[in-house]
Structures are given as C-alpha cells and as structure tokens.
C-alpha cells in the first residue's frame, strides 16, 4: 500500500509538470492554431542550456537559471520570426509539419552537442528527502511541485490581469477583432512562442534536476498530447487538469502492471490508450470548446 501512495504522489508531481508543459502547448495552440510537435525540444534545449551554464561556466544556479530563461525567451522569438512567420498564410498542415521538422532537428542537434547519455545536474539542495505524511519525498520533487504551482498561478495572473495576457486572449479569440483594437498580432504570436519556450524550459530544468538531463526529456513533448486531448485542446485549465490526470494515471497503470498484469512498459503506453479512448467518446476533452464538429 505504501508503494501505491508513493506512486500516487509521484504521479501528482510528474502530472504537475505535464500540466505546465501542456499549458505552454495550449498557449501556442490558442494563439495560432498550431499543434506544436517541438514542445518537448523546448524542455530539452532549456535543460541543456542550464546544465551547460552550471557545469562549464560554474555559475551558481540563481544566476544560471535566469540566463537560461532569457535565452529561451530570445530563442522562442527568433524561432517564431525566422521559421514560423514566413509560414503565415500557408495551410496549417504545413506549419504543423514544420514543427515536426524542428523537433527532429533540435533533438539531433542536442544529441550531437551534448551526447546521448543522461548527465546529472550539480546538486542544488542539500537534504535529499523530507518526510510528508509518512512518505519519503525527495526535496527536488517538492521543489518541482512548488515551481509548477507557481507557474500555474503566474499563468492565471498573466491572462487575467496583465495587459499582454489580455491582448493574447483577444488574439486567440479573434485575430481580426484584436487587430482592429490595436493589438499587434505578429507581436502576440512571437510572444506566445517565447513564453511557451520559457515556461517549458522551467519544466525541463526541473526534470533535469530530478532525473538528469538526457534526450528522454523530449518525450515530455509527446506525453503532452494525451494531457491536452483529455483536458481539451484549447483550455489552459483543462491542460493542467489533463496533465495531473495523465501523471497519476500512468503511475497507477505502472502499479497495476507491477502488481498483477506484468505486461511491462505500461507506464509509457497507458496514456496513449487513454488518448484513443478520449478521441472516441469525448473528443473535445473535459474543458475544450464544443464547436469541434463530428463530420
């Protein structure tokens, strides 16, 4: 039973990270209707950048991390301006395939630059575990949960009260109306990519600190799909909830598997079965707009 609760807690923590990545995925989708297959690579690039700053330059974490964020901000803007802006007006299907190309390109580039093996982060927190309700939880896990919650709260504030967040929501709602109100849609597109890259990088660094940095990080970008489909492709709140559910669910599947089924590998595969089932019975997810028509 302890194992069960341990897995449940793990699920919630990983799920919160899924939620963060899913949120940044939904941000891009809402702003520009682009299904971004390169989301996982944002995590990868962010984590490797931070790792590189911390190990090669021996920077302390509190300096290296903001530099990473600044880099990702610039990276997101540059990516949008150089690669995706020329694609405006092209069929959305081409834009999606560009993100697939980006994903494979950056994945290979990172493997080339940093190697294929997982590399651990320098230690950031001294005490390895804390005791919460009788369960041993690693400090980094607690930290990642706190960071996830902070990001989510930050997103909530950003979209509700900040000028740019409101402008972004207006753009997502209707580009022409937003433009006529004096919002620069081009600017909003670039900013949505930049923020998405930055937030993903935070998740990437967090996972990197916990598990070490490796190309496996980009799998987060794939796991995002079950989460966002479950929550609704265009709902930020749904993405968070979807991420949490997927995180818990894959750990439960793992528990079920290790206790009774012994199929192996359920941890990785279970979310995809869920994805197919959701598409079959409730394709707009829990919170998505219901204008998705059956044809």
């Amino acid at each position, binding site marked *: 039973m302890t194992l069960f609760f341990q897995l449940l807690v793990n699920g919630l923590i990983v799920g919160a990270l899924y939620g963060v990545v899913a949120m940044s995925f939904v941000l891009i989708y809402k702003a520009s209707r682009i299904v971004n297959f390169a989301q996982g690579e944002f995590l990868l690039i962010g984590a490797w950048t931070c790792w590189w700053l911390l190990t090669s330059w021996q920077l302390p974490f509190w300096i290296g991390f903001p530099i990473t964020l600044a880099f990702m901000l610039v990276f997101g803007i540059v990516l949008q301006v150089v690669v995706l802006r020329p694609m405006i007006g*092209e069929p959305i*299907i081409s834009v999606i*395939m560009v993100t697939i*190309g980006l994903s494979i390109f950056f994945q290979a580039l990172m493997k080339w630059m940093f190697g294929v093996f997982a590399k651990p982060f320098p230690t950031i927190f001294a005490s390895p575990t804390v005791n919460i309700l009788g369960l041993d939880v690693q400090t980094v896990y607690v930290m990642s949960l706190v960071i996830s919650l902070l990001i989510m709260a930050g997103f909530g504030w950003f979209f509700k009260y900040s000028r740019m967040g409101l402008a972004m929501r207006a753009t997502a709602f209707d580009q022409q109306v937003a433009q006529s109100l004096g919002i620069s849609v081009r600017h909003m597109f670039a900013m949505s990519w930049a923020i998405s890259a930055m937030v993903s990088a935070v998740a990437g660094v967090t996972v990197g600190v916990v598990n070490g940095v490796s190309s496996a990080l980009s799998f987060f970008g794939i796991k995002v799909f079950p989460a966002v*489909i479950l929550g609704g492709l265009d709902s930020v709140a749904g993405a968070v909830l979807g991420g949490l559910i997927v995180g818990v669910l894959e750990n439960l599947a793992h528990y079920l598997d290790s206790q009774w089924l012994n199929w192996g590998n359920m941890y990785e595969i279970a979310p995809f079965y869920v994805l197919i089932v959701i*598409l*079959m019975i409730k394709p707009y997810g829990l919170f998505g707009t219901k204008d998705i028509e059956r044809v």
Partner: protein
Amino acid sequence: MANISLIPSGDFKTRYAADTTIFPTKTSRNFAILGVALLLLCPAFMDRYWLNLCIQIGYLGIAALGLNILVGFTGQISIGHAAFFGFGAFSSAWLSNSFGIPVALAIPLAGVMTTGVGMLFGIPAARLKGLYLAIATLAAQYILQDFFSRADWFTGGTAGTIAEPFTLFGYAFDTDESFFYVVLVYVVVMYILATNLMRSRDGRALVAVRDHYLSAEIMGINLTKYRTMSFGISSFYAGIGGALYAHYLQFVSVEGFTILFSIQFLGMIIIGGLGSIMGSLMGTAFMVLLPEVMQAITTALSGTAIDAALNLREAIAFLREMAIGLVIILFLVFEPDGLAHRWKQIKAYWKLYPFSH
C-alpha cells in the same frame, strides 16, 4: 498553376474523358513506357549496391505514396506511418509462416490487415474536424511499437521474425536482381492504381475535402466516408510497402519502426511534393540517397579542418537526423510544392525555350 502554362495555346479539351487521361500526350505515355523498359534492364548492369538502393526506393516509395494520398490529397497528417509499415511487414511474415499462405498472396493480405488496424486507430479521429488524426496516429505509433515488442506470437518478440522469400511458380525471388522485378511490378501497379484513383470521382472528392471541407460537404461529399477511406488506403499502401520490405530482407526486427522513420516518410512526401503522385517517388529517392550523399561528403571532408573540428565520423548519425529535419523545414518554407513542382518548371522551361516568358 505551372500545369496551366504547360498547355500550349489552342490546345483545349472538348470531353471530360480527355481531361482525365493518365498521360496528357502520347509522347509522355511513350516516355513512361520507355522508362519502365529501361528499368527492366537495370539488374543487368547495376551492381548490388545500387540495386539495393533502387529496391529501397521502390518499397518505401509505395508506402510514401500511401501517405501522400492521406496528407497531400486529403489534408490529414499521419505520424504513425512507420508503425503501419512495420505492421504490414510483420503480418505478411506471420501469414506466410503460420498459415503457409504463399508470399505472393500474403503481401496483399498484409495490406488488408494493416488497413484493418489503421481503421481501428483512424476512425475515431478521421471523423473529427481538424487535425486530430495527427494525434491519434501519434498514439498509434507508440501503441503499435509497444505491441511489436510484446506480441511474441505475431512478431517473434525482441528476437524478430524470419520472412520467407517471394516465390512464384516454384521460382524464388531471393536475390537483389530478381527481387528488383517484384518491387518494380508492385511499384508500377500501385502507382497506376493511385493515379486512377485520383482521376475518379472518389479522388476528386478527396481533393475537395482537402481544399474546403465545408464546400465539399455542401456539394454532397460524405466527409466521414472519404476521410476514413483515405486513411484506409494510406494504411493499405503502408502495409504493402512493409510486406515487400519483409520479404526482401527476409527478416523483420521489432526495432526499426520508430517515430523517426515515420517522420522520414513525411519528409519524403514533402520533398517530393504534397499532392503529387510521381513526386512521392522522387521524394523517396531523395530521402534514400540523402545518407549516401552525406556519407560521400563526410568521406570527402575527412582529414580536413572541418572534420577535425566537428568529429564528423561519429556525428554522422546525428547529422543525418538533422539533415532530415532541416530538409523538411527548408522545403516547406522555400519550395512547398516540392521536387515535382521544380520538375514541371524545368519541363516548361525547355518546352517554351527560348521564350520562357
């Protein structure tokens, strides 16, 4: 639009039949026949290495054509094409090993089986407006990959499975020279089938669905039917291609059918030209020859400063992946109609030479 400039003034069609012929002119038909005849002679003067590449282009080209029908003509994305390709390979081997079905029959049957599996994943998504098929096939990719390594009875598990050589009337096509003809026959048949599909009512319906689904629906096209059909056809082609692959190598391992391979398929059709039948083959040739060219470049650069700085020999695998990604992006940004479009422009240039404007 380049198509229109190819038609000389005064050359107009008076019947629909004339507008939908496979070959626009007699010359083009003769050239096509001549091309196939020349290919028939290939095994006589090509060495093993080039024949191997040609056979690869053949079976991958069939699968790529299937994907092009889905992506280029119907406007849906599949990111699980390699998994379906693999499923075709395994089912053909399984059919001929377990039930003693002759390989010549097992290949089309494998295509049908793959269609069935494709439908299982595709139907929920193909019925939805939007690009949900991309996400469903992504799930299919991982689920099938997992299934391959799990289902010992079907795939031989991690050990892989042996596939019988292609045999017809007691003659085994088990060398590169003889199997070349098998692949050639399949390529010709499958490409003619696809060309015919595209000039039929169903093919035009697919294009209408791609261009504007609402207008298509108003014109009485059943969207659900045609989207599902397109995905079925695409899976069928993937299955046939995979089956040929299995009986060519005579061994199928569970490891090859990764998402990278699926993306390579997407790359093939983007490079060749979305919505172009012959483009699929051109793109496949490009993609198959890309690693060869990169190998050649690496060899040429070995010993130079660039090689020393980048350590090319060890990086070649990553460079290859990067090249695939880069080529996809560059083609989509700079030449979204692919090699097929380029080819048309070259033809138009020479046809109108020296007054190309």
